[in-house]
């Protein structure tokens, strides 16, 4: 099939190295600084809180939103993280999850709202999301490292690309699924578009948006191992080490840690979604 040679590789490299990076490096530098201090702040806060107090708070939240069973599971899970000595790694992973979820939602929910309001925006947004979700994550790890260097910030960016689409999609879907007659009623009584959005569409879309938030968190966690390849600290790094040393035990310890965090975060966010229905 090679009737002609298409030098995509060379062109991309030339484009990125000779124009893109020199032109935008300062912009990326500042993004990097902001995100880095955000990640550091969250990590330091999580590590500053005594493990016992953190456990207590999390158990109470779990109890409130998920019931007794979840509270009990949370307690056991936290005891596990402490007793296999991966507390610090867990907090590192958690802070990357928190920051990348935050970034995903801050960008994703408004994009979801705009694409629900306007079919032209949706026509652009949808293929972009497809692209973000299907492109193998290793491919965008490289530019992330090029632009932001090794470490937590690149991990947040890569995680954002992977985890933001559900937030956009579910927000869009939730707003579009508000019954037509309810929207007509709101308009017929003289709502402005802002009142329609904030008093009717968004409140009714909350269950759907919360399902998106839940998915975003889950995808962030599943990026933890991959992100550790570009130097993100945390449970992913533990797993990565276990692979390079062929240490099955260490792999299980780190892997179970990710599972524990995943279950707790999943059930708590589902609880929030259900409470608002």
């Amino acid at each position: 099939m090679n009737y002609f040679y298409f030098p995509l590789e060379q062109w991309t490299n030339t484009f990125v190295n000779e124009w893109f990076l020199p032109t935008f490096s300062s912009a990326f530098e500042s993004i990097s600084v902001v995100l880095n201090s955000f990640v550091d702040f969250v990590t330091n806060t999580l590590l500053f809180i005594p493990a016992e107090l953190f456990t207590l708070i999390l158990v109470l939240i779990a109890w409130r939103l998920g019931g007794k069973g979840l509270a009990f599971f949370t307690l056991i899970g936290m005891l596990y993280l402490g007793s296999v000595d991966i507390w610090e790694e867990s907090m590192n992973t958690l802070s990357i999850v928190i920051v990348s979820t935050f970034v995903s939602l801050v960008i994703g929910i408004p994009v979801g709202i705009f694409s629900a309001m306007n079919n032209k925006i949706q026509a652009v947004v949808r293929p972009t999301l497809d692209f973000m979700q299907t492109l193998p994550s290793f491919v965008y790890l490289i530019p992330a490292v090029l632009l932001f260097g090794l470490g937590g910030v690149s991990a947040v960016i890569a995680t954002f690309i992977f985890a933001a689409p559900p937030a956009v999609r579910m927000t869009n879907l939730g707003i579009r699924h508000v019954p037509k007659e309810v929207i007509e009623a709101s308009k017929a009584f003289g709502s402005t578009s802002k009142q329609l959005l904030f008093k009717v569409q968004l409140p009714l879309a909350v269950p759907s948006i919360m399902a998106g938030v839940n998915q975003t968190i889950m995808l962030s966690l599943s990026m933890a191992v991959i992100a550790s390849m570009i130097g993100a600290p945390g449970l992913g790094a533990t797993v990565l080490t276990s692979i390079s040393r062929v240490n099955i035990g260490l792999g299980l310890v780190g892997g179970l840690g990710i599972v524990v965090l995943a279950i707790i975060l999943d059930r708590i966010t589902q609880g929030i979604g259900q409470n608002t229905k």
Partner: protein
Amino acid sequence: MSKISVSQITKVFGQNPKQGLERLNQGYSKDEILADTGNTVGVNQASFNVEEGEIFVIMGLSGSGKSTLIRLVNRLIEPTSGQVYIDDEEITNMNKEDLIEARRQKLGMVFQNFGLFPHRTVIGNVAYGLEIQGVEKEEQIEKAKQSIVDVGLNGYENSYPSELSGGMQQRVGLARALANDTDILLMDEAFSALDPLIRKDMQDELLRLQKRLGKTVLFITHDLDEALKLGDRIAIMKDGQIVQVGSSEEILENPANDYVSNFVKDVDRSKVLDASQVMRRPEVLTTYKNGPRTAVRKMEEFGASSIFVVDRDERFQGLLTIDDAIRSHKEDIPMEDVLKQDIHKTTPDTPLNDLIGIAVETKYPIVVLDEDNKLLGIISRVSILSGLVLGKEHDEEVTEA
């Protein structure tokens, strides 16, 4: 000045509505335009006026464009051409802000599937219109509570719509429209989703509220019985056009074309016709100048075995049978004392429906009296039956067609 005035309003749905509009003006039909341009004509040059305090019903089958038409009035759907005026203010050329203000101040709306906000309580739903206008919280609650009482839902303020039955949900819908205290209520098939008994309740409720509050109501329905019951005037729609506007009697008695006459053919006339429309004037005997002898002679003359008796002011006295007349004459009893009094009496606006049962049981005709007891007419079994079958005499041809 009409409360609502709609002039030549037209809505063409599709990619290129202007093209569809041109063809409409050239006189092409709805089907031809759909075939040629792919445009759907929703409403075709509809014009009508609704007067203050009137219930104006737009009646048509599904697809006739009636729901589009009501949405053109408050511009939930933008018209392709034509004008709508509310209180002589043109709605159709208003900017966004003025339109929102007009919707808030002048136009309440009730929807077929209620359109309630599921995340708000009953009072939250009812207060919505006031809330978005920025009315003080206490005033919102006070007005909302008043409308909730008006529709008979007090005690349910803090329930959610999903906890209520269909009929109660539509009461919330009605209360929400009343709370804004607009002069006009737009009701889009408001009772169509309710089962027949609840629907009847709601119709009565609406008539009562309308009487008390004097709202101007534009009511959409596909149910002719409902239209005839509620409407002071009725517009019949077909294929996006208004084919006839008139009172229920006008429409029943003088259908504008075959479509309308076909439509009203099966109507339950007993609900529409009232006593005054089927009664006939009887031969009467006036007490002050006629004695029993004259009575007997009159009965012979008309071949009847009884006659109705009135006093000099035409007030109903009773029924005189031939036997009693002879007895009065022979035994010299005053005629007043032998009159039969156990005659069923009714008022001219009583629906025929209510008289059928009585007519079956009583052996004498029913008498129709006005508020001063004046004898207006009598209704025999025969006249009830012929009324049901034929309407009034002159639409015989229609019903046979």
